[in-house]
């Protein structure tokens, strides 16, 4: 399946598609009509040319078609009629889905189909309406099961290999009796039977017996030795280690169920299964902060911690304020409890980054599904992360409401025999039949999916929707982006929420220490026992020395949010088809900012929309403390960071940092999909067209004191030159320009304008990197001279970093870049994209010589977008030594195919920004550009 076709063909295709898009739309309708009329099996829509022949060879042929555009086309022409021509070009992938009864369901999907399309088709095939409890999994290279995100394209979620999936229960209803339909329970039973047999759901002998007996009753009906034979029971699987004794007991019980209907048997089965302690618990291997092997179990009620088979802790959802991950670490922030005043964060180590992310996602989803009433309208979401991954389906509450309105006669449940039969299953027929239906359902499915995300009831879907979707992919893009915006907001929270943390935590620790010494009796105070540790919320908890690892994340919290973000950026890249550019612009100015913010004209998002509301509030309230704290302690986290930063810059000389990131980064990005979520929608739109993705971040800083300017100049000079030369080497004209601009910015009071101009000039001239290039570069320029900086930069720097990171996680500052690179290198071998990050900072550091980090007055995030750009503006106001300072950070994401001139867009964006904030100067520009190099075919 994975054939690498030339980049060229790939590149062209999208364009072609575009051209034909309108036509396609019409064709679709026509096709649907055509399909509707002749209901014969033969009547496959053009999308499924190979469906007629169901044998494997046919499939292969099909696959090949996908790979090879030409052959594809030709084959289509063979199979389809003229009216359908327009559609031919869609690539078709064959998906094989392992169903719960052990059979496979094969269907063909457009290559660009999103997860929900597949999911809906499966549900349709299964006649399942209460589908919110289910999901699709697919195995990654490590053979780990990953849930397919319904909102994302399938191809982005399948790294390699054939499109094989499995249909599984995702959310185990705590009370299956509340499910509306028997058929839903039937599938749940099948899942549980598999869970039991595979050992995922451990149970005692007695339970195996009982569950087994109901399973038999459900599958085979009443005990009937004549019909069933004496050995019928051995053909079924009930337990991981099935013994004769067990079979006999099962049979004994089975005999007693005469007259019980399958549905009843299933209810009994579920009533017993649901009481098992591991029912619906999704286990993940991890290590605690001391390196002890544990298991983290995610379930409907919260997060369970196991050591060996023993439950050693449990965090109910209400207790958890925040879930996050960074690299291979997974963190939960615990709400202060009855006995403790402060939040604490607990960290776990997972085997690798992907595992951490997987766990995080599962947590997010379970929390939303079981704990929230609705996924979006609920402002109290507790997750504030760089990643914008959210559970977008219905929550259990919504699902129940929806299913209570299911108004159909109970469907006939076709209970198939379980896996054991390897004999002739008439499975072959199934897919074929399915395919016939597909055309009709197709549109419905798409529509339904849409609705589903909104949490509404399933209603009939108009074909229009589909047409829209497919036809006007571009139109979609903006819409998506709009939708996505909300997610963006969380970032802002991070700022508030995050910035405090490091010091905060320490502070807490201190206090709690004090508190402990006051409150605790001598008896327990000396050594905290394991138990005390477990009582995460206990005051004693935080002071623990071993908590260091837990604190660590907090220090880096800003950073923490970053990684996902950066990945995200990369992720965008993965899509391969898309091109995205992000610009991060930071301004620092005097109190002007507020106006600017409003003037920026972007529609602001009220804080309430953000996920992290309550957390956020906390953050604000504590701000003061925090700040104070920061002053005292700033040394540690900030300093370290600073050092790193400096070290990096020093090492690389004036020129700053030049990082060669290999493609691996990108691959990784892919993996991290979660983060990318938000951008993705936007990307999707363009996916069709462009193969390139460019992310550029421009950060513009203006020190409030102009004095800096002078100092900077010195520094800047050399770097500038160096830069220039480097740039030429590297490739990017644009980069040079930008750099130059920023340099100037530092000198001139109103540098911004100049910068813009230059950029605008350079913009057009700039050449989008060729798709074939595989290098990724991270460049960061530090305006200040390393030596001069030492004292002052720390606080300033820290602040800067924090803000930047939060607001524009995707943009990498020097250090960030490094991180990303590292991670990427480790994790993914496949490279598809080119990532370039260029950071330029003016030497404003001196200005900040004052140690006082200032008091944060306010922080605000505004997001706006146009067709090809999304701008996130983050405004932070601080008061430092009586002077108020306003920093504006803009993150501009430009996505699009090659048709879009990124440079121009960037220039335009900067210009606009400049106009909006005339009295501010640019202090930092980060350009992060990602270009897709490898054609997506590689993946497929």
């Amino acid at each position, binding site marked *: 399946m994975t054939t690498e076709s030339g980049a060229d063909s790939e590149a062209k295709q999208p364009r072609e598609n575009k051209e034909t898009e309108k036509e396609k739309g019409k064709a679709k309708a026509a096709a649907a009509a055509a399909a509707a009329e002749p209901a014969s099996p033969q009547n496959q829509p053009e999308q499924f040319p190979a469906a007629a022949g169901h044998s494997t060879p046919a499939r292969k042929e099909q696959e090949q078609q996908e790979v090879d555009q030409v052959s594809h086309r030709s084959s289509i022409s063979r199979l389809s009629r003229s009216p359908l021509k327009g559609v031919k070009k869609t690539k078709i992938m064959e998906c094989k889905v392992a169903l719960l009864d052990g059979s496979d369901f094969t269907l063909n999907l457009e290559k660009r189909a999103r997860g929900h399309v597949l999911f809906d088709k499966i549900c349709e095939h299964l006649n399942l309406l209460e589908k919110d409890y289910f999901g699709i999994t697919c195995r990654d290279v490590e053979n780990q099961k990953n849930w397919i995100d319904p909102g994302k394209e399938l191809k982005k979620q399948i790294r390699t290999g054939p499109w094989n999936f499995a249909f599984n229960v995702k959310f185990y209803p705590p009370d299956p009796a509340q499910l509306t339909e028997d058929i839903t329970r039937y599938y749940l039973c099948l899942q549980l039977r598999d869970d039991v047999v595979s050992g995922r759901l*451990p*149970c*005692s*002998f*007695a*339970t195996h*017996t*009982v*569950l087994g007996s109901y399973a038999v009753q459900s599958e085979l009906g009443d005990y009937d030795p004549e019909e069933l034979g004496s050995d019928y029971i051995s053909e079924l699987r009930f337990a991981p280690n099935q013994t004769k004794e067990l079979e006999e007991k099962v049979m004994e*019980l089975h005999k007693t169920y005469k007259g019980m209907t399958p549905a009843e048997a299933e209810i*009994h089965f579920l*009533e*017993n*299964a649901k*009481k*098992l*302690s591991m029912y619906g618990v999704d286990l993940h291997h991890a290590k605690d902060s001391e390196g002890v092997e544990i298991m983290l179990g995610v379930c409907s*009620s919260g997060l369970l911690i196991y*050591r*060996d*088979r*023993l*439950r*050693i*802790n*449990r965090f109910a959802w209400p207790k958890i304020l925040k879930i996050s991950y960074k690299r291979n670490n997974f963190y939960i922030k615990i709400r202060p409890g009855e*006995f403790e005043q402060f939040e604490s964060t607990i960290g776990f180590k997972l085997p690798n980054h992907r595992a951490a992310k997987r766990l995080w996602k599962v947590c997010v989803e379970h929390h939303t599904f079981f704990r929230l009433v609705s996924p979006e309208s609920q402002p109290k979401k507790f997750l504030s992360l760089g990643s914008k991954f959210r559970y977008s389906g219905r929550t259990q509450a919504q699902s129940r409401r929806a299913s209570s309105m299911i108004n159909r006669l109970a469907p006939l449940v076709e209970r198939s025999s379980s896996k054991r039969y390897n004999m002739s299953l008439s499975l072959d027929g199934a897919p074929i039949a399915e395919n016939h239906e597909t055309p009709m359902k197709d549109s419905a499915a798409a529509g339904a999916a849409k609705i589903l995300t909104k949490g509404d009831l399933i209603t009939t879907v108009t074909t229009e929707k589909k047409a829209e979707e497919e036809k006007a992919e571009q139109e979609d893009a903006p819409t998506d982006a709009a939708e996505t915006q909300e997610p963006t907001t969380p970032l802002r929270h991070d700022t508030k929420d995050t910035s405090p943390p490091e010091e905060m935590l320490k502070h807490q620790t201190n206090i709690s220490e004090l508190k402990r010494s006051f409150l605790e*009796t001598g008896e*327990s105070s000396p050594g905290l*026992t*394991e*138990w005390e540790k*477990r*009582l995460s919320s206990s005051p004693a908890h935080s002071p623990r020395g071993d908590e260091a690892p837990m604190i660590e994340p907090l220090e880096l919290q800003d950073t923490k949010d970053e990684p996902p973000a950066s990945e995200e950026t990369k992720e965008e890249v993965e899509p391969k088809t898309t091109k995205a550019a992000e610009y991060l612009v930071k301004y620092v100015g005097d109190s002007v900012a507020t106006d600017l913010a409003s003037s920026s004209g972007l529609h602001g998002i009220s804080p309430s929309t953000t996920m992290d509301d309550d957390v956020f509030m906390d953050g604000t309230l504590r701000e003061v403390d925090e700040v104070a704290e920061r002053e005292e302690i700033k040394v540690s986290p900030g300093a370290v960071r600073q050092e790193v930063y400096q070290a990096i810059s020093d090492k690389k000389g004036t020129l700053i940092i030049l990082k060669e990131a290999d493609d691996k980064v990108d691959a990784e990005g892919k993996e991290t999909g979660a983060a990318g979520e938000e951008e993705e929608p936007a990307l999707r739109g363009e996916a069709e067209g462009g193969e390139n993705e460019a992310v550029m971040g421009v950060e513009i800083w203006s020190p409030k004191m102009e004095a800096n300017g002078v100092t900077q100049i010195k520094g800047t000079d050399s770097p500038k030159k160096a830069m220039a030369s480097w740039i030429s080497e590297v490739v990017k004209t644009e980069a040079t320009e930008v750099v130059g601009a920023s340099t100037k910015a530092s000198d001139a009071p109103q540098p911004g304008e100049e910068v813009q101009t230059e950029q605008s000039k350079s913009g057009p001239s700039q050449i989008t990197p060729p798709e074939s290039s595989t290098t990724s570069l991270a460049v960061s320029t530090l305006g200040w001279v390393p030596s001069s900086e030492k004292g002052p930069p720390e606080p300033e720097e820290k602040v800067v970093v924090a803000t930047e990171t939060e607001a524009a996680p995707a943009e990498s500052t020097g250090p960030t870049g490094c991180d990303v690179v590292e991670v990427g290198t480790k994790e993914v071998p496949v490279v598809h994209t080119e990532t370039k990050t260029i950071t330029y900072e003016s030497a404003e550091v001196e200005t900040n010589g004052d140690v006082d980090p200032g008091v944060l007055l306010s922080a605000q995030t505004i997001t706006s977008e146009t067709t090809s750009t999304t701008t996130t503006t983050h405004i932070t106001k601080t008061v430092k030594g009586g002077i108020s300072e306003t920093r504006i950070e803009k993150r501009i994401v430009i996505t699009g195919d090659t048709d879009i001139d990124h440079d121009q867009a960037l220039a335009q964006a900067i210009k606009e920004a400049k106009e909006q904030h005339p009295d501010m100067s640019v202090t930092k520009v980060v350009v992060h550009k990602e270009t897709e190099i490898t054609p997506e075919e590689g993946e497929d």
Partner: protein
Amino acid sequence: MANMCPYGRFTHAVVRGVPETFGKAAGDDCEKGETSVDLAKAQRQFGCLTGALRQKVGLQLIEIPADPELPESWRIEDVAVIQGDTALITRPFKQQRRGEVEAVRKVVSELNLTVVEMGDSGGATLEGCDVLFTGREFFVGISSHTNHRGAEVLADTFKDFAVSTVPVCGGARLRNICSMGGPQTIIISNSEGAKKTLRMMEQLTDHHYEVLTVPEDLAANCIYIKGPSKLDFLLHRPAEECPESVSAFQKLQDYTLLPTACSEASKLGGSLSSLCLLVNRKLTYF
């Protein structure tokens, strides 16, 4: 699952007589070797307890004869953990007590229970008085006599249930500070240590329990049985032994309270529940 009926249904009680060596070898354990225990009184109290179980509650009583060689064998609760149709024969902490399991093993096999041996797997030790089964889950108190490995074996034995480990403070045993007082009721002492334990239990559990707090440690150990007659019985320490706690028990609605003296066993660290193993041979499936 199958065996997850509400806590308290029992059909049988297994007890073991108080030997004349009562209090002799147990000395090293609790308060001084030479606590003055009154053997006769101990036996009398034992008789009262068994009588209550048989005649008031209506359980079938199986009494294993006392064995002078095993001075602590009356603490039969320690040597087995029984849930549903499975009995886990434990490995007591003290070497000299390990002989006690023999007779118990025999009895539980005769009751047709599935017998699981803890054996010496990885140095596992566990005593029944560190185990609280609530009907929905197990709590194992990690104490001087029960270790993590022992708890693991327990978890492997009773796979249907969550097995959570909890701390017990001050050298106490879990069952000395808490016990079941109803299908969803935990009786727990008011001491600091007990509170800590309770807090941990609350954090670990998925279920909801009523908590009945009693001012005296000793009073926290009770025996709750929903007898064959569907009545709620609670065997608890009498007013003479726990004057302040009796009123708490009276809060339990519609219970048949059975004050049962246990002062002598108590001197040796035992309590009411130490003296019997409760078994349900009428398992209900549904």
